[in-house]
């Protein structure tokens, strides 16, 4: 997909979020900075507990009461060029901002839809809250339902329980776009669905994105989904973004040892026989994280420096890529040598259109 690299819609700077716990503060997100561009799809990848969902909740100010934003800014640029720090918004301003400028799609669509009202009521309510007349809200919804390949008339008058899981997820996707936001945040939207349903959601998402050109922050532990839809990939580990770059660079020329380890643990269906490597140990304690690089106790590239000095986030390729890894050159060499499949290693069923 094409996006406009000079047009930044969301600029996150030094964002830190922590939770209160008995033993101390759980530093779930630490000094996270990135820009989201117009039309760009950014995938945040990482294991559970890496802070990706906390980051997402902070962006829409829906953190639980035990969490606090310890610093940073989330600068949003309106279509008219006006810039605001979303973190400074009042509750009321936030209500206008959500859906209209930034909407979200969560996993488990049943929990996100009100079970006792029809889809049509949700559409009208949303429209009303943002000053859109009923008829227009209805027209927009019907058009979006058709775009996500739903039987629009039937769905519009249905209750959520009358729809299948895949249909509900597509309804949510459509509803998230009804006020034409510039940003849609998606948290594991295809995690709890079946393969063919996931395929139809991904296809529908691509069509919508090409047509409406919104930006997406996509949160997933599924590397395959990230590989398919992301323009940019950011790897998170222990609350920090440890690597960020264009999707092909991150997948084929990884610069952080953790990114490469994740990739080496993910089976590829059409790669035939594969040797996969697991990552030893488990994610670190976020109250008292390991010194130096937080990944060093599990890292295959660990050197003495990693145990004491936290690696700085360094820019590569004219700033297009970032990585915080002491062994970045070695990692990139290994990634280049191993991550690109030779054409004969790809099974014929999926070879179909591979050029």
């Amino acid at each position, binding site marked *: 997909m094409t996006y406009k690299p000079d047009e930044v819609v969301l600029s996150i700077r030094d964002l830190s979020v922590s939770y209160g716990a008995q033993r101390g503060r759980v530093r779930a997100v630490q000094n996270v900075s990135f820009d989201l561009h117009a039309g760009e799809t950014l995938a945040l990848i990482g*294991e*559970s507990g890496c802070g990706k969902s906390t980051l997402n909740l902070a962006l829409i100010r829906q953190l639980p009461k035990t969490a606090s934003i310890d610093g940073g800014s989330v600068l949003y640029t309106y279509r008219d060029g006006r810039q605001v720090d979303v973190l400074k918004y009042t509750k009321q301003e936030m209500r206008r901002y959500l859906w209209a400028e930034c909407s979200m799609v969560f996993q488990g669509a049943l929990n996100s839809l009100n079970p006792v009202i029809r889809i049509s009521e949700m559409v009208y309510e949303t429209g009303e809250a943002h000053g859109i007349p009923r008829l227009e809200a209805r027209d927009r919804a019907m058009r979006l339902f058709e775009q996500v*390949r739903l039987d629009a008339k039937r769905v519009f008058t249905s209750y959520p329980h009358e729809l*299948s899981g*895949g*249909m509900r997820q597509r309804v949510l996707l459509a509803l998230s776009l009804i006020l034409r936001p510039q940003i849609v945040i998606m948290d594991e939207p295809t995690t709890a669905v*079946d*393969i*063919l*349903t*996931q*395929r*139809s959601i*991904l*296809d529908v998402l*691509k*069509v919508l994105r*090409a047509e409406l050109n919104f930006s997406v922050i996509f949160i997933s*532990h*599924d*590397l*395959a*989904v990230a*590989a*398919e839809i*992301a323009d940019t990939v950011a790897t998170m580990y222990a609350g920090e973004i440890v690597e960020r770059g264009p*999707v*092909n660079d991150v*997948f*084929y020329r990884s610069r952080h040892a953790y990114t490469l*380890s*994740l*990739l080496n*643990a*993910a*089976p*590829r*269906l*059409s*790669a*035939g*026989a*594969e040797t*996969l490597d*697991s*990552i*030893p140990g*488990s*994610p670190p304690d976020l109250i008292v994280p390991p010194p130096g690089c937080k990944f060093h106790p599990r890292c295959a590239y660990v050197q003495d420096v990693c145990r004491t000095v936290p690696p700085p986030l360094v820019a590569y390729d004219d700033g297009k890529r970032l990585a915080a890894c002491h062994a970045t050159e070695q990692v990139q060499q290994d990634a280049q040598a191993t*991550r690109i*499949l030779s054409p004969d290693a*790809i*099974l*014929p*069923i*999926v070879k*179909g*259109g*591979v*050029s």
Partner: protein
Amino acid sequence: MSDTPPIVELRGIRRSFVKDRQLIPVLQDINLAVQADEILCIVGESGCGKTTTGKIIAGLLDPSSGEVIVNGRPTESYQGREKALLRRQLQIVHQDPFASLNPAHTIGDILSFPLKRHRMTEGGAGLKRRIWELLTMVDLTPPGDMVNKYPHQLSGGQRQRVSIARALTVNPKLIVADEAVSMVDVSIRITLLKMLLRLRAELGLTIVFITHDLALAKYFAWEGRIAVMYLGRIVEIGRTQEVIANPSHPYTRALLAAVPEADPELTRHKQAIRLRSDDIPRLTDIPRGCAFHPRCPYFIPGMCDSDLPELASAPGFDQQVACIPVQRGLPLHVHESQVAAEAHP
């Protein structure tokens, strides 16, 4: 195939459940032989009957009709002590390690109950030694620290190791692993799978691995077999390498084509197969003929919607497939309307 009888064989298995006074047929005519020492993967989408099949294999569930044959003998012929022994041979590891371990018991307790119940060890020292041994086998070390812990003190991956250790207490011959790694993180998943493969080699286990994740199935059962299920039937079964590299059933093809790959170029150039319908029919209203025909892009009217396909061999394939056009070697044409739909971005 060897001369020894399959460890478990299902013959003409049907199973229905009653929900809201309605009979829901979940399995229809399942015929499946699990050979000793093999890895058999059962894949399919939710509601296809893979978990029910796994439970019937493990002896946790009786079929509504049909025969379950273990070591060459129907299960009904096992009585008394023999029946108890049979139970021990077949074990299951469930998906959710949070729900399957009693939160009020320590890991030591969880492992000692079946050991005591089935008199697997002698005396307190023997029991302790065996628990130590089991914990070491599943890499929960040091065992001394682990025995006094409660499930909530362990991570998801560690809990799943406890579940596996518990299944091993009774020296089973076969383990059904039902989505056993789908709730743990990517990095832990491979560790668990490698451990299962190691245990299989060390203990001579047969593993029935149930998953919805085809890439994982491919990795785990590369040297074994895969059975693909759709709406209560097996639609394709054969060696994993054949099924993945040369799928025969249109449903298998659609699944394989639909799976995203952890490789940007590969996944973006994959040719998806558009189905005629995105919706799975209800189990209470299974289509006539081939159950997949309302969604199948290669549907042949008058054939697929009237005749029930049985698993059989087909020209050009080593595996067995339940698709009449494929069995007859007919060329598969995508419908005109489909081609138009695919041209759309």
